[in-house]
């Protein structure tokens, strides 16, 4: 069992290494895509199998006996004892289950999607690396190892977003993702440092921290909790660190699917859930998280409503759905949050892969207003996308309904009515913009034809079908809070609702969603018009609230002028000047000294004797002094 757990993490890294080395060595491109694809697909497939085996074995055991796999002691200096040890409890079990499963499907899809790309091998090396990093993050048994996984995920995403590195805007996007994530990571690492110091060496594994935080002051915990959430903000693209997410669409579509569905963005939610025991001590920070999540959800939904790039719409919807998850985990409904994470993985992967299929079929066209009537040409894609859209708009019985309902109801029942209203509004907007996408892409312009359509292969279609089935059905796991009970996270209790209230809320949710769909149909059902910035408020939405411009002005420009100042004035004139004087003097001195090395033995011998003589003088002095 332990070996299986270790293998799950090690295998992807191993195959990433093999792929990377093969790609490097094979400069003449002798190796076929089949070679790379075989290695790249076998690994996730095996890992998926292994994780399923573990899930089935573990789910019969009681939830408070996690499985540990100790690899080696990493650092052992004084109190700092960091083990490379993996932990499999119910939470990480669910995570590795869907990460590996959906990851594998995305890998399969990517084989066809990336087929004609020159860097095929490189892509899959990164891809496997990405998967491995995420798995490391998830099964880490202490925050340090988790942080390593966290950083590796950031690195992998950087490499993948900038994969089409010949276009400079893609590089900018990759840099943006990396740098914005770095801001979050800073919060994370500072939080870990404070926590470590505060715990005074009682051990730093999750279980040790859980036992140790009882003795910590409330303010310390609040500080740590808030900083940890800064880390989560970065990875999970919440206000104010969300700006990288839409730009990250620069990467190939499978990358977006992987980032948005199974890996990366889920890390923040996972981390907050993992530290659930800590957040339960500081509910006010939890509320703050929930509000951040709610506003992120709302604002992302607003931006998505006015976006015309198909991938960016989906990107904003991810941010919006992540907002829901943060509402849940912030309010202590960790089970509900993770459940939404779980269902979201299915339908968001499906949406991205569907979008990717459309993009590929239309020769890399991403503007939805240049599409239309695709229902007839891409029927399988249409059905899959429709199922995913129904899932995300929480129409029963599709997956999103159960998970989102649990979150919205939790907000209502725990008495956070503001959050509840925001969540409902967002649900309405979600239905609106998602069906706007469906109507514009698949229904509108019913006479439009596509003479140069690229046919889609099986490796694109089959994963879509599997995920469509998943999106339609996995929601049933959440009936009667079954999922939340299974995960067994330290949820904060809410008053139990009456049956009438429960059905009322459920009906309201469905009604809101249907309202959104109706509005979308009315506006975009037949002859859609691209959004125009004709009134100020719309301009605000279309320009994403000018946040990018604001950040540029606030941080980028100020920093740039500061660094120019440092470069030109401080570094150029002051430091270089001083250094120049110093080093110049030192070099001259060295040259002078070297001239004493005149190469005559006599001189050297004199030096020796002279030195001994000086030492003798010193010794006489020292002996006299004692």
């Amino acid at each position, binding site marked *: 069992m332990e070996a299986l757990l270790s293998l799950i993490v090690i295998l992807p890294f191993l195959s990433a290494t093999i792929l990377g080395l093969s790609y490097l060595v094979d400069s003449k491109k002798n190796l076929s895509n089949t070679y790379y694809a075989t290695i790249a697909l076998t690994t996730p497939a095996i890992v998926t199998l292994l994780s399923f085996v573990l899930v089935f074995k573990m789910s019969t055991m009681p939830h408070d006996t996690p499985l540990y796999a100790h690899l080696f002691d990493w650092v052992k200096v004084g109190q700092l004892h960091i083990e490379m040890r993996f932990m499999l409890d119910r939470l990480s079990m669910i995570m590795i289950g869907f990460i590996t499963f959906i990851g594998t499907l995305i890998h399969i899809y990517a084989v066809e999607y990336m087929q004609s790309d020159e860097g095929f091998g490189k892509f899959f090396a990164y891809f496997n690396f990405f998967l491995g990093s995420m798995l490391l993050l998830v099964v880490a048994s202490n925050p340090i190892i988790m942080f390593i996984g966290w950083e590796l995920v950031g690195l992998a995403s950087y490499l993948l977003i900038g994969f089409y590195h010949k276009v400079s805007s893609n590089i900018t996007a990759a840099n943006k993702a990396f740098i914005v994530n770095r801001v979050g990571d800073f919060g994370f690492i500072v939080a870990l440092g404070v926590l470590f110091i505060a715990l005074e060496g009682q051990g730093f594994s999750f279980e040790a921290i859980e036992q140790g935080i009882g003795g910590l002051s409330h303010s310390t915990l609040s500080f740590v909790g808030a900083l940890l959430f800064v880390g989560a903000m970065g990875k999970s693209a919440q206000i104010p660190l969300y700006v990288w997410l839409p730009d990250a669409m620069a990467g190939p579509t499978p990358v977006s699917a992987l980032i948005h569905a199974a890996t990366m963005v889920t890390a923040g939610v996972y981390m907050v859930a993992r530290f659930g025991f800590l957040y339960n001590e500081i509910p006010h920070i939890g509320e703050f998280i929930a509000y951040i999540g709610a506003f992120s959800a709302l604002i992302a939904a607003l931006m998505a409503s006015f976006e015309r790039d198909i991938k960016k719409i989906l990107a904003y919807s991810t941010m919006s759905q992540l907002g829901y998850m943060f509402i849940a985990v912030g309010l202590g409904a960790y089970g509900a949050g993770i459940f939404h994470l779980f269902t979201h993985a299915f339908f968001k992967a499906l949406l991205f892969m569907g979008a990717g299929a459309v993009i590929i079929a239309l020769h890399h066209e991403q503007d939805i207003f240049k599409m239309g009537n695709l229902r007839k040409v891409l029927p399988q894609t249409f059905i899959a996308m429709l199922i995913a859209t129904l899932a995300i708009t929480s129409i029963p019985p599709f997956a999103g309904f159960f998970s989102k309902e649990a979150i919205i109801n939790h907000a209502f029942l725990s008495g956070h009515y503001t959050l509840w209203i925001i969540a409902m509004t967002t649900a309405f907007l979600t239905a609106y913009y998602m069906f706007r996408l469906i109507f514009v892409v698949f229904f509108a312009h019913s006479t439009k034809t596509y003479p140069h359509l690229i046919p889609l292969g099986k490796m694109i279609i089959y994963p879509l079908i599997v995920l469509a089935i998943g999106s339609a059905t996995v929601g049933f796991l959440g009936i009667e809070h079954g999922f939340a009970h299974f995960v067994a996270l330290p949820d904060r209790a809410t008053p139990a609702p009456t049956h009438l209230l429960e059905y009322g809320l459920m009906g309201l949710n469905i009604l809101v969603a249907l309202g959104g769909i109706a509005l979308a149909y009315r506006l975009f059902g037949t002859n859609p018009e691209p959004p125009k910035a004709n009134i100020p408020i719309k301009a605000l939405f279309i320009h994403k609230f000018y946040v990018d411009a604001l950040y540029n002005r606030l941080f980028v420009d100020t920093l740039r002028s500061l660094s120019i100042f440092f470069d030109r004035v401080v570094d150029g004139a002051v430091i270089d000047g001083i250094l120049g004087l110093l080093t110049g003097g030192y070099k001259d001195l060295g040259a002078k000294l070297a001239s004493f090395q005149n190469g005559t033995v006599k001189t050297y011998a*004199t030096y020796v*004797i*002279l030195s*001994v*003589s*000086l030492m*003798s*003088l010193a*010794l*006489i002095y020292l*002996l006299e002094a004692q």
Partner: protein
Amino acid sequence: MESIIFFILAFFLLSGAIMIVFSKESLYSAIGFLMVMIAMAGMFALLHHSFLFLAQILVGVGAVVVLSIMIILSINLKEENQPKQNITRKNILFTTLIIAPIAGLLLYAIAKAPFAFAPIAQHFGTIETMGKVLFTHWVLPFEIVSILLLGAMVGAIVLSRRRLHVES
């Protein structure tokens, strides 16, 4: 009586040493060297150390000095061929100045040292005792010295053969 002999020997020893340093002809220097060696042997004899006396005469005088005199004679070293030595007053003063602290330190320390010498044992310095000591107590350094000599010999052969090689 002993101290008279000691001072006579010391006189020869020092004047020999001065001769080595100051004479302009290499041959005179070599002769000064010879004086030093012989005087040194005399010192050993004065200490009743017959083995070292013999070794000094055999090795120091017989081998080292004679060899160096032979070399000087055979390569016919003339004054104009030698590197210029400027034995000026300034140099002598400088040398004295830098040697003085070393000598001073030695004198200072020796003066302060609590020497408590045991009287010389019977048979001290005879060949027999030396042999016994060398082959029992000091056998390890003795053997390593032989290895040292072997190594030095190989080195000397390599160097001299190299010269032949260059000339041919």
